[in-house]
């Protein structure tokens, strides 16, 4: 196993074109982005989200106060009738409608609506916690309120999830997604060189007494590792050389890189396992998939991401690049741990499905023609 891994590592590191696309290209692109945006755009702060507030007779007073507290900071609230609010929502003049019954209506699945959702979710959870404390430990209520006050103060100062959204960041999140997904190229190469019907090298290895799955596992692990390092280098470069203030904790972002690399390489593996197409055709497929995927995640324009999510809401849930970018958003912008975890789980599940598909394609494979 170590023998296989050692040589795969040597081969991959010496494969200049593959290393250029997986390691150098994202760095070049990141540098170009940095120059293109200039320093000014990075100082742009997240604009206040316009929301309508609809009061009802059964409304919750505390929630009203919470919305008032948010007004002027991260929200721009306006009290109005439900009918008028719905019209404004349909016209896109407001991003959502908060009912004082702790309900939220949004028209699309955009980032802003996610922030509003997250805000409501945070409030509901805190309220439940306070009620729980009041019923079980009334003597600690004072401490809890104090802690809550501190929390409110924090959220008031730093906005929704704890961070301000730099509009340029969205490109860098998509770029990180691209860096991860470029693992599809070494992943594809692994399978090309492993299958007997695709290359003489594959045939020579299939004839050996080393179990095929052992070979695939060894080279895949090395490829995952190298791709993770490539993505991590891109992350460090953007964070510390280009001085982009991602803000989120580095460990969390590295975890995204790890899962992103996993899905990138897995994508290459599964494409490599399908059919007998020539390598050039398969490279074309993975290139198209990765670029479209990154485009929909906002690599070319953040508007594309928004438009895609409005037109096909589920696309953001299955598009690997969108999920990777979304995980970065969760960590850096709206500090939504639950959604961050969900993104990582989604990436893990998708990778698992792809690897399983690849396994089923190649298991006990004896080729119909070579």
């Amino acid at each position, binding site marked *: 196993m170590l023998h296989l891994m050692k040589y795969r590592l040597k081969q991959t590191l010496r494969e200049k074109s593959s290393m250029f696309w997986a390691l150098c290209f994202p760095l070049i692109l990141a540098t170009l982005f940095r120059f293109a945006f200039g320093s000014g755009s990075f100082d742009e702060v997240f604009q206040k989200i316009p929301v309508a507030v609809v009061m009802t007779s059964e409304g919750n007073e505390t929630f009203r106060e919470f919305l008032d507290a948010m007004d002027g900071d991260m929200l721009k609230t306006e009290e109005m009738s439900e009918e008028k609010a719905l019209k404004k929502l349909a016209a896109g003049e407001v991003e959502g409608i908060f009912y004082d019954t702790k309900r939220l209506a949004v028209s699309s699945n955009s980032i802003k609506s996610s922030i509003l959702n997250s805000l409501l979710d945070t409030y509901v959870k805190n309220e439940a916690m306070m009620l729980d404390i009041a019923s079980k430990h009334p003597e600690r209520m004072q401490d809890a309120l104090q802690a809550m006050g501190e929390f409110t103060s924090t959220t008031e100062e730093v906005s929704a999830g704890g961070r301000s959204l730099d509009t340029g960041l969205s490109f860098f999140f998509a770029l990180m997604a691209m860096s991860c997904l470029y693992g599809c190229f070494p992943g594809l190469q692994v399978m090309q060189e492993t299958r007997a019907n695709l290359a003489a090298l594959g045939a*020579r290895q299939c*004839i*050996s*007494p080393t179990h095929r799955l052992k070979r695939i596992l060894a080279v895949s692990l090395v490829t995952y590792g190298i791709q993770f390092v490539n993505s991590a280098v891109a992350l460090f470069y953007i964070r510390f050389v280009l001085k982009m203030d991602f803000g989120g904790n580095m460990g969390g972002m590295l975890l995204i890189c790890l899962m992103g690399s996993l899905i990138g390489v897995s994508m290459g593996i599964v494409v490599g396992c399908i059919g007998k197409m020539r390598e050039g055709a398969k490279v074309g497929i993975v290139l198209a998939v990765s670029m479209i995927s990154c485009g929909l995640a906002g690599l070319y324009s953040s508007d594309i991401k928004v438009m895609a999510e409005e037109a096909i809401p589920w696309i953001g849930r299955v598009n690997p690049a969108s999920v990777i970018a979304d995980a970065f958003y969760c960590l850096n912008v709206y500090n939504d741990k639950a959604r961050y975890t969900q993104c990582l789980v989604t990436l893990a599940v998708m990778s698992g499905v792809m690897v399983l598909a690849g396994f089923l394609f190649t298991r006990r494979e*004896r080729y119909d023609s070579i």
Partner: protein
Amino acid sequence: MVQIENMVKRYGKLVALDHLNLEVRDGEIFGLLGPNGSGKTTAINCLLALLKFDKGSIRIAGKEMQPDAYDLKQKIGVVMQNVAVFEQLNVTENIDYFCGLYVQDKKRKKELVEEAISFVGLQNYRKMRPKQLSGGLLRRLNIACGIAHKPSLIVMDEPTVAVDPQSRNKILEGIKELNQRGATVIYTSHYMEEVEQICDRVAIIDHGRVLACGTTEELKSMIKTGETITIEGILLGEENLQELRELPHVFEIDYRESILVVRCSKAKHNLVRILDYLKGKEISFGRVFSELPTLNDVFLEITGKELRD
């Protein structure tokens, strides 16, 4: 060592192997001779469990060959028709990689790699990458990668294709040496001279069937041709050709572009009789030569076409 029985392989309507039967004995160099597309490589791929086949069975060293027959695979070395080495690894690393698929012990592996490098004469090219090697050296590296682990059965699928004569001789000598060290070799080629030169027994294959099998002498004795006489720079009329056809032991005459080719059955003085006839008729001629039958003649008589058609 190897028994292939009634093997049938179809690609759609095309029958690539048509009830192929072969037996390769321990310690011999067995040649599979046939034109391009005759089914040699398909037979080899089936033998190595790389390819599914529709019918029949393959046994190696008494055991059935399967994709997961790792104990059998351990004994087999393969030299593919296409060079199969890693471009990113140098000569030593390539041989070490492939040897490592068979041999786990590091010390033993190192010895085997050194032996393989010496065997193919690549001592001065250890650190070179495949792109830096000439075609002949590349073929030698390809062979080293296939035989480094000292297999008892070596399958060589046209290892001398596109190789210069010097390298080809070196490769053929190497194959003989491997055989002398105890390896059984299956050697496929469409070069009859190579097969005649190194193989103990030969199977002539076409359209996926074995047409004849035996030693080269046995194969040659199967055919009618005992001698082929060629006379260049000769002018003959139809009457002369007819008279030549009627000479004893002559069974076929081919005359075109002032070259006469006469095929005779096995007999003494065939050449003398023909030359006497020409002398008697005062017919002048240029170069004359007589050839004993080759495997190409065997193939020609059996199939009615040239081996290299």
